Structures are given as structure tokens and as C-alpha cells.
């Protein structure tokens, strides 16, 4: 078992490295746009006069290139300019290239520097995560718990099973941003239901809020984003778990349990659930990274200062170091989720425990 887990993690690690390298190398072919976007806006410097001259722009871009190490060749080898014979010779650059420097930096824990803000990527990601982790963590726990509760009730086939299934199937198809927008415009709209605050985190009208007030305020601001994530995550988990439960309820041991006189709910809870959980556990490995992607949408809709919005803004501004950091971080979440799923397997299925 340990060997199996190790190889799976190693393969995933390899895949993440390949993806991040792909994004890194792809991002290098259009650096000029990125550098232009990362320079201070020309219009905002119009007052100083000098900024609009093209030579100054050129010089500033050159300085930026040197600062971020972008004047080095991109990869270990590159093609030179065409010689008179029409042949473009290959050059070997050794360790002095951007890719090598990036990898070495990563190995030393240096995630690079944002083009846009000039701050370390690791630092800004950590700041953003301090906000995103509570959001996605709460959503993940709530989604799993409500899926468990809902599936257990649905498996005993109550009268509301069919309409509930129809609702779940319908919600399952909806894009997250539509759900989030509808929630935002229904529950946080002065024209409809003015129950919850709309954007951002804190209320601006209080100058010195106390800590408890801040906490309560943050909690109120998190209700809608968390609900949006939960609403879109629950249907898939529930439908899958219900199907597995119903299959387990048709087996011989479930019939025996019913013949002993147990109630339908007790058969589900004490007998069928643990067996039905196994395929759902595999879903967790998909589900946690998907929540990170969901955070991108939710944080943009509700204007929350988390990792998702950082990524979306970085994509618009072509801030590649931040984007690659986001890819690596999502990959790390994926590794964690795989590990978690495997540990849950060990807990749920004694057969796996005894074999190892």
C-alpha cells in the first residue's frame, strides 16, 4: 500500500512539474506584452513628461528584463539567427538560462517575483491563502457533511426523492458563476432581499471595529460565497453516493439486516454506508482541487481578496510568475487530496489495511 501511494504521488508530482514547465516555457514567447502591462501606465505618468518618450519606454523594459533575469536565454538550447547558408545553428547555454534559474529557485523555496507588484510570489500567495483556506475549507466540510446527510435520506426512497433528484441534476449542470451571481443579486440586493452584505470583507462605515465585531462581519461576508461553493459541489457528491448506497442496499447483507428487523435508516447508517463510501472517497481527490478553481470564480464575483482573485488578475495582467505559482499550489492541493483519499481508504476498508 505504501509503495502504491508513493508511486501515485510520484506520478502526480511529475505531471505537475511537466504542466508548470509547459506554462513557464509557453509564457516566455510573448514577454513584451507582459512587460508593457507591468510598467507603470503611460497615461498616469503623463504629468512627468519624460515617460511617454519611446526611448524611455525601451530603457525601462530593458531594466525590467535585467531585474527579473529575462535577458538570459529561455531554455538550455536555442536556435541562433539564420546564417547566410540558411542554416539556423543550435546553441547550448548550460545552466545560464531562465528555466534552470527558475527550477533552482523553486528547489530553494524561491517562487519568483511578481512582474506587476515586484513582491515575492510565495509571500503574496501566502497572504491570499490565509483568506482562501478558511473559505474553501468551510465549503469542503459543509459540502461533504450535507452530501452525506442528504444521500442517506435519499437512499431510503422517501416521497420527495424524485423532485429532489431532479433539482440536484439541474443544479449539477449550472456554472458556478451563475449560481453565485443569482445568490448575490437575490440575497444582497437592496431591491430584493437586503439580508447580507455584498462585496469585500469589512464594512466601511465603522472606523474602529472591535475584534468580535470584525469576526462577525467577516462571517456575514462569507455566508454567500460558501453557499455558492456548497450548492455547486453537493449535487455531484450526493448523486454518486446515493447511487452507490442504493446498489449496496440491494445486496444480500442488506437484506439480512432488514430481515433482522432493522429500520431502513439503520441499515443505511450501520451497514451500507461504509461500503458505499469507497467510490466517493476517490471523488475527494477530484473535489478539493476543484474547490480551488471554484474559489477563482467566487472570489471574483464577491470581490474577496483571496488566491482566486489573485490568479484571475494575474491572468489579465499576464503576471506569469504568479500564475505559475498558482498552478504549483493547485498541484500541491491535488497531492494533498490524493494522500487524504488514500488515508481515508485505509480507514474505511479493512481489507486494504490488512493487505499492507
Amino acid at each position: 500500500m505504501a509503495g502504491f501511494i508513493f508511486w501515485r504521488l510520484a506520478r502526480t508530482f511529475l505531471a505537475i512539474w511537466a504542466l508548470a514547465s509547459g506554462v513557464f516555457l509557453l509564457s516566455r514567447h510573448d514577454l513584451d506584452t507582459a512587460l508593457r502591462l507591468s510598467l507603470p501606465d503611460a497615461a498616469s505618468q503623463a504629468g512627468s513628461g519624460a515617460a511617454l518618450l519611446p526611448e524611455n519606454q525601451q530603457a525601462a523594459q530593458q531594466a525590467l528584463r535585467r531585474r527579473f533575469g529575462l535577458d538570459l536565454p529561455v531554455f538550455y538550447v536555442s536556435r541562433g539567427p539564420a546564417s547566410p547558408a540558411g542554416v539556423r545553428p543550435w546553441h547550448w547555454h548550460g545552466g545560464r538560462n531562465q528555466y534552470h534559474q527558475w527550477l533552482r529557485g523553486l528547489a530553494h523555496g524561491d517562487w519568483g517575483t511578481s512582474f506587476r507588484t515586484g513582491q515575492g510570489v510565495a509571500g503574496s500567495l501566502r497572504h491570499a491563502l490565509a483568506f482562501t483556506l478558511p473559505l474553501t475549507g468551510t465549503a469542503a466540510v459543509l459540502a461533504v457533511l450535507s452530501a452525506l446527510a442528504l444521500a442517506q435520506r435519499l437512499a431510503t426512497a422517501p416521497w420527495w426523492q424524485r423532485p429532489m433528484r431532479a433539482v440536484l441534476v439541474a443544479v449539477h449542470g449550472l456554472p458556478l458563476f451563475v449560481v453565485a451571481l443569482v445568490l448575490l443579486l437575490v440575497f444582497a440586493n437592496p431591491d430584493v432581499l437586503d439580508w447580507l452584505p455584498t462585496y469585500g470583507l469589512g464594512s466601511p462605515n465603522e472606523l474602529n471595529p472591535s475584534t468580535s465585531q470584525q469576526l462577525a462581519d467577516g462571517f456575514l461576508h462569507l455566508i454567500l460565497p460558501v453557499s455558492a461553493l456548497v450548492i455547486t459541489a453537493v449535487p455531484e457528491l450526493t448523486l454518486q453516493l446515493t447511487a452507490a448506497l442504493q446498489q449496496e442496499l440491494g445486496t444480500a447483507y442488506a437484506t439480512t439486516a432488514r430481515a433482522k428487523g432493522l429500520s431502513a435508516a439503520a441499515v443505511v447508517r450501520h451497514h451500507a454506508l461504509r461500503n458505499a463510501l469507497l467510490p466517493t472517497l476517490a471523488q475527494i481527490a477530484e473535489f478539493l482541487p476543484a474547490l480551488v478553481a471554484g474559489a477563482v470564480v467566487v472570489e471574483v464575483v464577491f470581490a474577496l481578496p483571496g488566491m482566486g482573485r489573485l490568479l484571475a488578475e494575474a491572468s489579465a495582467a499576464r503576471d506569469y510568475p504568479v500564475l505559475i505559482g498558482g498552478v504549483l499550489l493547485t498541484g500541491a492541493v491535488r497531492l494533498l487530496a490524493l494522500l487524504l483519499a488514500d488515508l481515508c481508504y485505509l480507514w474505511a476498508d479493512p481489507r486494504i489495511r490488512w493487505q499492507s
Partner: protein
Amino acid sequence: MGRPPHPLAVLTAFRFTWWQRLALGWLVLLVLVAAVAPLLPLPYPPGLPDLANMAVPPFSAARHWLGTDPQGRDVLSILVYGARTAVLLTLPAALLAALVGGLAGAAAGFWENSARVPLAYWLVGTGGTWWVLQLPLPMLGLGLMLIGALLALLARLQNRPLPTWPLPVDALVVGTATALDTIPRLIVVVAVVASIGLSAPGLLAVMVLTAWPPMARLVRAQMLRVRQLPFIEAARAAGLPERQIWFRHALPHALHPLRTALPLSVAGLLGLESTLSFLGIGLPPEVASWGRLLATVRDEPSAWWALLFPSLLLTLSILSLNTLSRMSTSRA
């Protein structure tokens, strides 16, 4: 005893339920509107702001039948041209992904890792790559190609089998698919789209890139089953070449799961496209899109019409596609 069957009874062989007929009708209508969008008598073009009528509600101002968004653009035109964008982007992307995924998955499932390519073709391939990349001594590449071609010709003339070298098709396909699936699609697309810039062909390529792995996986699994069936064995006993057995006999059966997967894939891509437009990533800002119209609602929360109409269209289309994919499973 029964009366002769109605001539239209053929249609009932498909066993459409009412819901599925409705879904199909809606999707056909959408595609038709998208196809003839430039010919429709729309009162306003989609991208032009009407500064006199900003954020007007439906049915009130002059000929803005569904109102205007907070920047004064006509909602009806954006909806029509947004349908055009969605159809022209997601349908080709899903079809291309089905083609790539179907072929790759079928090859992986049929040959697994035991495909053997004659040594002569390896020589030709290596030499060709060498020459195209202009590695040092380009003549060496040409020489390799020449030797390979000669070997192949000799073998053909003397009717003798060449020594072969295995090509791990399965490992290549499954490895690539797993690598692309490791990270959620949205994150990959957000990262890659930023590198290649805003354009419709670029977005199409990225969509195909992220949409083919699930299809390849389905077709590969089906092919592993089909490969064991007696008619494949019969074809082999009849002496057909492997490639022909794969393409003519096994492939049509292995592609069955795509009937379910294709509508679902289109639905997923539709969601992805509108999400990207909503985030302002992917398509240039002047391209009309439902997602971009939805994004304007945040500037003007009271403009319910800019939320209701596009999200209704999006929801209806996605639900119709889901319904359609269930039809295929019940028939298969």
C-alpha cells in the same frame, strides 16, 4: 389485428420523451439563430453603446426590446451574437476533442504498449526529425532517412518481415491525459490563455487540449472490451492487416460512449466559455458573449434583465444537453 403502422412511426424508434424532444428543439433553434445571426433584423448591432439609453429595462425605450446593459449595449443583440460565439466555439472544440480523444484512446486501447513499429520506419522518423530540427550534421539525418527507406523497400520487394521496435502508445496517451487532468481545467486554461493571449483560435485550441482526456479514457475503456470480441478474432483469422481491423472493425464500436460524452462535453465547454468571458479572460472584449453580459450586472445590481436573460439561456442550453446525453444512454 392492429392497423398498419403510421408512416412516421420510424421516429418513435428513437424513443424520445417529451423532455428530450423539447431539449432537441431548443438546441436546434439555438444553432439556427447562431447560424443566421448576421441576417436577423436586429434593431441594434451588438457592440455599439447607445449612450442615450443606458441600463434601460425591457419593453420601455425605443426598440430596445430586452433592454440595454449598463454600458448601453442592446441585450437582445448580445444574446443573439453571444449564441453565435458559444455555438461556433464549443461545437468545433467538442468535435475536435472527440476526434483527438477518440483516435488516441482507441489506439491506446487496441495496441496498449505492444504496438510494434518496423525498424525501418523508426529510422525514417528519427532521420526526418533530425533533419527538420537542423541538429548538427544535417546530412546524418538525411542518411538515416535514406537507409530506412531502402530497408522498407527491400522488405517489401522480398516480402520479408522487418525487425520491429515497440512503441508504448498506451503509456503515452494515458500519461498525457493524466498530466492534463491533474489540475482543474479552469486553472490550466487561466494559466495557458494568459500566455497565448486573447483570441478565438487560441481559446479553441486550449479548449480542445483540456477536453480530450476524458473522451480518450472512455474510448480506451470501451476498446479494451471490444478487442476481446469474437469478430475481431475472426477478422484477424481472415488475415486482415492490424491497422484495417482497428479502423474498420473495432473503432466504430469503441466510439459508442462518445454519444453520451459529446453532449456533456459541449455542456462543460459552454460553462467554461461563459465562465472565462465572465472573468474577462479568453475572448477579446469586443466579442459578444453571455458571460460578459452577466459580468456587467455587478456594476448595476438593479438591472435584473442583464442577469435573467443570459443565465436563462445558459441554463436551458446546459440542461438540454444533459437531457440529450441521457437519451443516448437509454438507447444504447
